[in-house]
């Protein structure tokens, strides 16, 4: 059966710079925003854009990610025809196994994609935070009769050299593609979202695989090759909130962004739900002694202390006399009495004993406490 489009979500990344947050956890499974994991964003975008065949390519520490994705029902992707498919690396007849790069990961799954015989394939990252209607991108891609369309966003000029930068003509046709240029000539950055016509992409993936010099990466190898062959490559301009949380600092910032009164991401949009697997916990309880100021609090929390400019994920408890300021408290954290926490990220299910103080002395750096720890001495 032929289909218009198949989405492939690259979800094998490690996210080393997130340190303990990706301890035994793939980056797309990192928590965000009080109740989500990063992969909820591409999956919800697919669901809301009407894309119902989604492959999720896993590799690094896949267990939590696999169980989280499951058969896709939280994102309404449990479909009879299509739906969600977790695609781990496998050993083929020639003994190849691990995914070696983004293009190689898709190359390994050519048979999966062919099974659905799609016109187009959408390549997504599993760890970016944004809301995007891919159906509009598909319309653009078809109108331009593009072989490949790359979603781009304007970034500040001073940061442009961190990204893949595109130069286009007035019709958004790509003239030049530079991966992390020292001296960028444009500030249109690739968001790592690629839409291809499947027929040419398949050919280029096979060709790229035959080149032993190639790093098998879309940005470094496949797109430059298509450019060289004068294929029709277009840039699709995206406006709105988009974030790749690469470091503990940017993870903390992205969470704090949600406390802004008119947060650009606006997760509370009835027309564009971001779905997640829900632990179905009771409403949270705010005790007579508690105080909650400018914060987000999720279900299952029991708050008896003071919470200011902070996010409490689900199932967190905060004892009497404790003060949590400018902090991100991940699911199931148990905070005792008279604890002081300032500008910190506290990992999942960690227990913090009574009277502990956690903050950075100069107040600039974010303190990160890992998952499932037991904190019985001050962290200063």
């Amino acid at each position: 059966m032929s289909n218009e489009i198949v989405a492939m979500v690259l979800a094998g990344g490690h996210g080393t710079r997130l340190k303990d947050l990706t301890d035994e956890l793939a980056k797309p499974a990192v928590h965000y925003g009080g109740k989500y994991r990063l992969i909820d964003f591409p999956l919800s975008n697919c669901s809301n854009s009407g894309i119902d065949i989604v492959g999720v390519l896993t590799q690094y520490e896949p267990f939590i990610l696999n169980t989280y994705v499951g058969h896709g029902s939280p994102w309404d992707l449990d479909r009879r025809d299509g739906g969600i498919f977790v695609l781990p690396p496998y050993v083929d007849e020639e003994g190849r196994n691990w995914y070696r790069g983004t293009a190689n990961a898709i190359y390994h799954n050519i048979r999966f994609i062919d099974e659905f015989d799609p016109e187009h394939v959408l390549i997504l990252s599993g760890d970016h935070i944004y809301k995007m209607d891919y159906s509009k991108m598909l319309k653009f891609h078809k109108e331009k009769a593009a072989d490949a369309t790359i979603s781009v966003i304007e970034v500040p000029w001073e940061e442009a050299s961190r990204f893949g930068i595109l130069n286009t003509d007035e019709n958004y046709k790509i003239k030049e593609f530079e991966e992390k240029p020292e001296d960028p000539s444009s500030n249109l950055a690739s968001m790592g979202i690629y839409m291809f016509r499947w027929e040419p992409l398949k050919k280029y993936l096979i060709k790229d695989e035959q080149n032993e010099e190639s790093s098998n990466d879309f940005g470094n190898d496949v797109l430059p090759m298509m450019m060289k062959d004068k294929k029709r490559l277009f840039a699709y301009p995206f406006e709105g909130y988009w974030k790749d949380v690469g470091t503990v600092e940017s993870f903390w910032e992205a969470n704090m962004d949600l406390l802004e009164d008119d947060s650009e991401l606006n997760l509370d949009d009835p027309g564009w739900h971001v779905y997640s697997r829900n632990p179905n916990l009771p409403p949270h309880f705010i005790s007579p002694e508690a105080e909650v100021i400018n914060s987000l609090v999720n279900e299952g929390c029991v708050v008896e202390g003071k919470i200011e400019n902070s996010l409490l994920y689900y199932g967190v408890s905060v004892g009497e006399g404790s003060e949590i300021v400018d902090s991100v408290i991940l699911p199931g954290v148990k905070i005792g009495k008279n604890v002081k926490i300032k500008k910190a990220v506290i990992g999942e299910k960690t227990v913090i004993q009574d009277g502990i103080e956690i903050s950075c002395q100069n107040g600039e750096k974010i303190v990160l406490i890992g998952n499932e720890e037991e904190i019985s001495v001050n962290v200063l």
Partner: protein
Amino acid sequence: MENMMGIINVDREQNFLDELTYFRCGAAVPFLGRYRLVDFILSNMVNAGIFEIALFVRNKYRSLFDHLGEGKEWNLDRKVGGLFILPPDWHDPSDVSVGDLRHFHNNIDFFHRGRAEYVLHAGSQHICNINFEKALDKHVRNNADITLIYKNVDEIQEEHQPCHRLEIENDRVTDIYSGGDNKNIYMDMFIIDKGLLMDLVNYCIAHRKDYFFGDAIMARINDFNVQGYEYKGFHGVINSIRSYYKNSMRILKKENYNSLFHEDTLILTKVKDEVPTKYHRESKVINSLVANGCSIKGKVENSIVFRQVEIEEGVEISNSIIMQRDKIGKNAVLNNVILDKEVEVSRETTLVGGKEQPFVAAKRASI
């Protein structure tokens, strides 16, 4: 617990919550921030591993169907067993059954098809977090024909008055009656052997009886080995607006919250994918139960706030129950109030109900 099947019989639970039950049956009434009354009995059954569950409904069940769907959130979307919502669409020309016996007669296939040896029969008005596995263990161990589940309350309250009471001697139930000082409140839950249930259904129909519990169990208490099983956790009976309000407020005591909501036996409900609740700078919330998806800019005290509620600046809410998607305009003052879903309270409005008899606004009211 594959050996037990569940019946949630809400046939007689009609119209007891005034405005809240104008357009829905009691089992579908919203409760405690994100639940409906039926969630408690249904989750208790599922937590005990019961996966063949039928609901006997009589009328006003649209919102109940909408809420339960095929039972996915309760893990009841099964190939074998699952959730069976059985409305009264009955066409057997030879049917002579009356009262709630009609449900049993017309859905007899549900019992025959089920593989379980025991049936747990319950209503939805007794709010608790109970371990039915232990109750069945005791039923089997004591060779009981029927086990009635009860709560020994500290004090008889107004809402206990209409409940059946159990006279118990050495675990054996010797009498069932209403009223008086007896503190053993029957929780409208019993376990019975399936074969005996079928026999008693036939007996009731043959004698033109119309109320299974009254005619087959109460009236024949001495014909069978009827045992009692005492439940010890949080218990609230919802049979009037006053008891609905009182038991909602009781959950604001931490020990009650912890007793009803513990992690290993969660009360499950339909998931709505709401964002966490936003407490704005100017908000002040104390001693309250708050669900997800709310935006709070005003003051909330001793109250229960359901999902997706918007509370504007200067609002003062106390001792109130604010249901899903309500919008409370600037500087409104609400005290002792129950607002059903989707109510809009315009700015500067003051609503004050009685301390024990709250003011109730019906669904979608504009005030």
